[in-house]
């Protein structure tokens, strides 16, 4: 068993190294950061000095090695655009993204499960059909269009909610939170809907199909025959068994929410790591791009690793197969 885990961890590290290398080699196509960094009056000597200072004169494999070396010590270099350590900037920006992801995740789970259960129980009702058709919007419209649409309706036409930014934030230690102020909460509504809509639709459709499946099972029929109330059958017996696969999917989607926050953050000028990344691409801010891509891949690799290891514990067949193989 230990051998299996070690092997999986080793595989994960290899994946990270390859992702990092691929990302790093792509940076050569993004453009030259020097041009953005120096004003138009700069001389050839300035360019040369800066190139050497930033280590851009070295082959990219050396640059990559230096990046890895620093990253292992928690040092991601200095942002070319802001002139500050990348690690500081990422830490400063992380709360905004994590809060947005958490709120949209919670919204997606609550509404996803509620709508899923509802459409499963009232399969042919008008409301169910409406929810089902409306949910198609969630999967088929691109995120930025949903965001712009929400801004147009709720900010421009109705003027109810802010179109950009995080509102007022409160600083708790190193964590800046918008959850404790009225304007912060208002500012969260549109972006979290935009970000969570796709996941909500996904969860809703999953819950619905699983629930329909469960409701067809024999034990549900027996429960009905015993004269149990609908409420008890639906929520105590059916829902509980529906949730097992749903929870697995929700776990995997958490990573996706954080990674896909880029578009939502750009549309709503949400000051999180996604917006930071987009700014970095436009400015050819290589240290920020590298650190962000590495963090996101670490996150995905870690989630997959944990899921794999959990399966290993949950599903005894895996263990048996492995044992036979050796």
């Amino acid at each position, binding site marked *: 068993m230990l051998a299996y885990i070690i092997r999986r961890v080793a595989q994960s590290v290899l994946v990270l190294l390859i992702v990092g290398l691929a990302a790093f080699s792509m940076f050569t196509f*993004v453009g030259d*950061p020097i041009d953005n960094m120096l004003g138009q009056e700069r001389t050839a000597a300035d360019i040369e000095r800066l190139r050497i200072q930033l280590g851009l004169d070295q082959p990219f494999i050396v640059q990559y090695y230096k990046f890895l070396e620093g990253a292992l010590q928690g040092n991601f270099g200095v942002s070319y*655009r802001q002139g500050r*350590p990348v690690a500081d900037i990422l830490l400063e920006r992380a709360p905004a993204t994590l809060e947005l992801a958490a709120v949209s995740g919670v919204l997606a789970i609550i509404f996803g499960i509620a709508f899923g259960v509802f459409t499963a129980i009232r399969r042919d009702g008008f409301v169910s059909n409406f929810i089902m058709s409306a949910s198609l919007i969630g999967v088929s419209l691109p995120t930025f269009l949903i965001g*712009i649409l929400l801004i147009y309706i709720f*900010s421009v036409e109705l003027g109810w909610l802010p*179109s950009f930014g995080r509102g007022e934030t409160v600083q708790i230690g190193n964590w800046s939170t918008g959850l404790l102020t009225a304007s912060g909460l208002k500012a969260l509504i549109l972006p979290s809907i935009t970000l969570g809509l796709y996941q909500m639709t996904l969860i809703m459709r999953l819950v619905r199909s699983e629930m329909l499946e469960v409701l067809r099972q024999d034990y549900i029929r027996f429960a009905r025959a015993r004269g149990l109330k609908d409420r008890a059958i639906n929520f105590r017996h059916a829902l509980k068994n529906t949730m097992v696969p749903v929870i697995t999917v929700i776990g995997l989607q958490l990573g996706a929410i954080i990674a896909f926050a880029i578009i939502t953050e750009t*549309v709503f000028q949400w000051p999180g790591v996604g917006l930071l990344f987009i700014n970095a691409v436009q400015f050819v801010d290589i240290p920020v791009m590298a650190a962000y891509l590495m963090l996101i891949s670490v996150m995905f690799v870690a989630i997959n690793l944990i899921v794999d290891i959990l399966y290993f514990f949950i599903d005894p067949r895996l263990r048996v197969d492995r044992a036979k193989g050796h």
Partner: protein
Amino acid sequence: MKSTMALTITAMLLATAAPVSAETLRWARAGDALTLDPHAQNEGPTHTIRHQMYEPLIIRDVTGAFEAALATDWAPKADDPNVWVFNLREGVTFHDGAAFTAEDVVFSFERAKQPNSDMKELIGSITEVRAVDDFTVEMVTDGPNPILPSNLTNLFIMDKTWTEANGTVDVQDFEGGEITFATTNANGTGPYVLQSREPDVKTVMTRNDAYWGIDQFPMEVTEIVYTPIQNAATRVAAMLSGEVDFLQDMPVQDLERVNAVEGLVVKQAPQNRVIFFGMNQGADDIEADNVDGANPLADVRVRKAMSMAINRDAIQQVVMRGQSKPAGMIAPPFVNGWTAEMDAESATDIEGAKALLAEAGYADGFSIRLDCPNDRYVNDEGICQAAVGMLGQIGVTVNLDAKPKAQHFPLITDSQTDFYMLGWGVPTYDSEYVFNFLVHTREDDIGTWNGTGYSNPDLDTMIKSLASNTDLEARNADIAKIWRIVQDEQLYIPVHHQVLNWGMSEKVGIEVDPEDQPKVKHFTMN
């Protein structure tokens, strides 16, 4: 009608939701200042934010004319053309209450000459800055420098004592990731005081009631809340929903929409920026074309024909939706040396162009690649696309290669493009700046943006002599002579002068500044 109602509701809701005093200016544009250190970066949006808190000796007003700031008057010394004398304003204090004196000016100029400073090129001719008394400063240059004041309008003055006390005498090593006290704090003499700053998120400034010019300028804004909004659609939405009072970097396609909303106006003025095409005329053979062993662009008739093929009026109407002014020379109208006659030398003449091409031996035309940015100038890629069609009419087949600016500009500065788009602004308001960067033969520290390969030693000598010619009449005659050669040689193909658009709510009163650097002390609010 509907949007009017929505706006009224918006206004009411906003009023009930967050009672803000009428004097707060909520200001948004695409990007944020990179740093607050006055000498670390030489960049437009960064200077704009600093201008609210710090002051140079001289600033420019909205017409581009000099306006006295920390200096009340300035002139070359009567008996020594190598020295400029600046008389400083008395009774000025920094935000922390310290008095402003000549010592601070000397200190700031020395600071701006440090290697890490991004401003050092602009004051490269200054060899010494000395305080004659508390309110007189003399600047010694290496030879007469008639346009020195033009280079000082973004050179901010810091308080010597404050800077030393906070250990920030050295200019921030921006590229090295250094954060100094001056990066995040500001202590200027300017009309606004920094309250809080979150880079890329929000910067808040409040009115400096001890400002020397408090009675001279409107200064009706008591608080500035500056928020960068990167996405163009969101930026406009924020303006439409009333969350922003003043908007820079307006997308051209939304101008009419914003203008149509009651309570909002869009004001425009010609910007200090010309858009043009450059051609590699210096090489014997170029790579981007299909002509072997020769360079069609080396023939002035070809260059003239290409310029005649460009229909600038069509670009103005269709691509720019009226938001440009066709150009015949590569300097904007505010610049010393600009003339209306030269700026009109760009008539479209397809037949004439074809005849010229045939005369040059390219009756069947040729093909060439055009390198174009797609995220730098207003509708840059659209202009290039239009040019492709127009040049096609005279038989020049153009393959368009549009890229982000981060990839486009190195092509020009590394001489890797034969036909390219470039835009140029003139912060000094003098033709010498244009010649230094775009006309002079490319060398290490001059002609750095001249990607044409053009080299004319006589012209170079004339350009170099401008820097120290104190006889302004003779100097202007030289400038006119150089322009004549640039025009006759068709060194570049001018396209248009960009127009600058600022969106604002009706309560904000301000005229558009051609440098895109609003100074909030001039704003009125009602």
